[in-house]
């Protein structure tokens, strides 16, 4: 039963499609670096949507989400690089990496089932650090992860003979490596958006939201909260694993320092700042939080020169200062996020009713 789209939404979809197709060419005008930044924005949107299942839907505060990204990244790095001399194809590694991340999610989830809020956050934070430290130290006595040096020369994404690295000609158009990855990432992002939307409006998604809202009431109407929380962790972790694999292939290099606590915090900030539980908001949060620091990187120096005639403050520290200030201001004036779900917006607009005893 497909409903036909109204002309207005059909036009909207057409415009978005054109914009998505054209974007890497526009970005390339500023240099390939901007295409790479764009790619990271989409990759982070993918990650943020994975985390949104755990935090936004099920309401489980996870500060160690980057650990699953790390698991996916290292899975790809170890199975498709000269490090072990293995070169598995993408269709084998990505599901395998997602499965490993999923298992890691269950491993994290099971001891934390009775914890909520702050307590859960601290345990997940610890878990994230444990994974990173493992990656850092699993180089002795048997060298598995190559320690802090990381793994280099990782295979790019390949379908048959078509490689995503290097420039290639398609239909007479010359596409650079980052541009090709851009289209792959957009395809994956669309997939994760569809999965998110469908889960949100399903029996499982409603049960997650019920647990988020009131765990005792959820239990009382027959929701197996233990299994559903584990499921949320497992689903979120799988998406993290897939994103990690693509990251690994795109960079050609992984090391433990890519998976520090600040990365987890940033992804959580994308979810919260964009609008927790609201898919367009989460995407907006991810794109803004990836691109804003980069824009500032290029803008802070020249703007200072224009205003004061010279660079007064070191651009690098000023950049993060402005970025942090922007986060504070958004949360102060848009507590539900930049683009909250209509319901949540209504809720914050209407004062909660006084409920009699």
């Amino acid at each position, binding site marked *: 039963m497909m409903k036909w789209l109204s002309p207005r939404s059909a036009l909207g979809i057409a415009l978005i499609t054109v914009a998505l197709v054209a974007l890497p060419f526009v970005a390339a005008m500023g240099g390939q670096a901007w295409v790479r930044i764009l790619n990271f924005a989409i990759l982070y949107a993918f990650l943020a949507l994975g985390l949104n299942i755990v935090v936004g839907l099920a309401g489980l505060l996870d500060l160690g989400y980057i650990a699953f990204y790390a698991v996916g990244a290292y899975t790809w790095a170890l199975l498709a690089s000269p490090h072990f001399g293995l070169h598995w194809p993408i269709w084998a590694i990505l599901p395998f990496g997602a499965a490993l991340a999923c298992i890691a999610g269950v491993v994290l989830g099971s001891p934390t089932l009775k914890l909520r809020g702050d307590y859960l956050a601290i345990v997940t934070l610890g878990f994230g650090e444990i994974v990173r430290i493992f990656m850092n130290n699993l180089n002795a006595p048997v060298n598995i992860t190559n320690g802090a040096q990381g793994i280099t020369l990782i295979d790019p994404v390949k379908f048959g003979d078509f490689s995503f690295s290097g420039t290639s000609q398609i239909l007479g158009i010359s596409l650079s490596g980052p541009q090709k990855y851009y289209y792959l990432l957009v395809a994956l992002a669309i997939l994760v958006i569809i999965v998110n939307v469908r889960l949100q409006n*399903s029996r*499982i998604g409603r049960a997650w939201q019920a647990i988020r809202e009131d765990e005792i009431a959820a239990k009382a*109407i027959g929701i197996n909260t233990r299994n559903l929380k584990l499921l949320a962790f497992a689903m979120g972790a799988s998406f993290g694993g897939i994103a990690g694999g693509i990251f690994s292939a795109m960079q050609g290099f992984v090391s433990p320092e890519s998976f520090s606590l600040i990365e987890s915090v940033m992804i959580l900030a994308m979810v919260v700042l964009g609008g927790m539980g609201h898919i367009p908001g989460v995407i907006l949060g991810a794109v803004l939080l990836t691109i804003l620091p980069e824009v500032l990187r290029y803008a802070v120096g020249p703007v200072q020169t224009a205003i004061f005639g010279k660079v007064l403050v070191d651009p690098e520290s000023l950049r993060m200062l402005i970025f942090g200030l922007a986060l504070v201001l958004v949360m102060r004036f848009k507590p539900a996020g930049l683009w909250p779900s209509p319901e949540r917006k209504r*809720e914050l607009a209407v004062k909660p*009713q006084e*409920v009699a005893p």
Partner: protein
Amino acid sequence: MSKAMGEVLLEANAVAKHFGGVKALRDVSLTIRRGEVYGLIGPNGAGKTTFFNCMTGLYVPDGGGFMFNGAPLIADAPHQAAERGIARTFQNIRLFGNMTALENVMVGRHVRTRAGVVGAMLHTPATRNEEAAIRQRAIDLLHYVRIEDRAEDLAKNLSYGDQRRLEIARALATEPSLLCLDEPAAGMNATETEALRELIEGIRRDGTTILLIEHDVKLVMGLCDRVAVLDYGALVIEDVPAVVQKDQRVIEAYLGA
């Protein structure tokens, strides 16, 4: 209903529960029969809600146990109580505040539906049909408790009386054979209480057994087929309202000796 009216639906055998030194329940035994409205009354702190929580698996009793529909109820498994057919509302309303009224009732269908993650992601015909059935049933239930015009409002923005009704609709969505209402009339005015009475009588007529915890003695005596009185965690009497009302121990428990 396939089962005969009047047969035993729930049997509590010497249920005991203590919190530290406080004996909240002292060997409470009572039986609820199919098709009746069973009242559980007693002064504040008598152990009514504790009894409820033991029965629905939120607490594990320290002694005794429950038989429901001819089989023992497993303690410490609240979601299984709902699966077996026991639904409840809460004294201090516990709705899913940031979900709409309709979604609240739809969540109530969880235990009677099957769709999993894969079905939801692939959007299979079976999942879509089930989803449509869930939605339809939820709409019907909102009609049943007469708050259908609030379907798209967030639960937390409903009026107090409507929230109570929504909680009942959500409980009914689990298709319970025993519906437990914990002080549903608390904080209601006379008109709202009267409407609630009609609703409860309707639910009984439609074949659901009801366990009612209530402070409003008039409501309990008018509505219930049988009444049990708890005081200091112990069962004082279990009988028809006319007898309970005249019992000296009950009068003492309520008014003080």
